[in-house]
């Protein structure tokens, strides 16, 4: 049953991707990106990765869609069509080659859910055994992210902060003549 649901979701993902390529209205494309994220979130949820699914739904389907729509509102939603076959052949070959290389790379990966996979024998057993004693909170993901990997999370927050500052420096602030006086 689970296999069936995942297969259907993956088929939808592929269909969405093809639709994104074929469509020329960027508003529709942005909405389809949102659909794509939501489908991914569903796949993650079925794989029992609740936190990842949550993030994908909130960031990928939510915030990113709004930001892309704001961008499209500035740039316009039409794509100019290019004539000629030669221009599309090289990118197609490149993309196919990269895709094949990626698929080839997955052949070396341990199969999904394999208990003997190296990732399950590194620090994961220690977290599973010790975090209820050391940290004592039920959501192990939270204890790993906030406590065991506190440095990592601090770095991520700093990256988010820096991104905000960067956007503000590039786009924000001074261009609004006379408007800041009111606020």
């Amino acid at each position: 049953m689970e296999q069936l649901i995942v297969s259907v979701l993956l088929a939808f993902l592929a269909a969405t991707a093809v639709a994104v390529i074929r469509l020329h209205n960027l508003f529709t494309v942005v909405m389809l990106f949102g659909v794509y994220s939501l489908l991914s979130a569903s796949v993650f949820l079925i794989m029992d990765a609740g936190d990842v699914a949550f993030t994908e739904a909130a960031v990928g389907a939510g915030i990113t869609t709004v930001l892309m729509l704001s961008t499209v509102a500035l740039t316009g939603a039409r794509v100019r069509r290019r004539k000629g076959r030669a221009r599309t052949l090289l990118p197609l070959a490149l993309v196919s080659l990269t895709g094949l290389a990626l698929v080839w790379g997955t052949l070396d990966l341990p199969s999904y859910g394999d208990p003997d996979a190296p990732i399950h024998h590194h620090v994961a057993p220690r977290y599973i055994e010790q975090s209820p004693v050391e940290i004592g909170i039920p959501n192990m993901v939270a204890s790993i992210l906030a406590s065991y990997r506190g440095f990592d999370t601090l770095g991520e927050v700093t990256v988010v902060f820096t991104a905000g500052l960067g956007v503000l420096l590039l786009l924000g602030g001074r261009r609004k003549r006379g408007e800041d006086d009111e606020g």
Partner: protein
Amino acid sequence: MSRDPVLKVTAKFLIPLIMLFALYVQFHGEYSPGGGFQAGVIFASAIILYGLVFGVEQARQVLPLAFMVRQAAAGVLLFGGVGVVSLLRGGEYLNYNLLAADPVAGQHLGIILVELGVGLTVTAVMVIIFFAFAGRGRD
């Protein structure tokens, strides 16, 4: 941006619920999926919804940009500050064991504070980015 009364009424109904859900994700993150990052994004999406329906200018008046920038900095400072406190108490940086008398209680306190810092920064930065993008097209 929109003057549609249906949108306005629906948004007014939804915004408090979204904010409440964000607070739940923030403070229930130790027990259920979620945490500061997700909560921050959800809280920001409530503000963005307000901005989309009632206009970015009005949202900017509710939450001035200067305040958002300070909130983003405050979140990082809170996170880093927790680390400094644990340093001052004689432990390693970000070792929450020493924040309270009992190591497990210290971990709880540390995680709650750190997640709060993450939530504050993420909310503020998402709103800042939205304001920066949406505030541009108006001339």
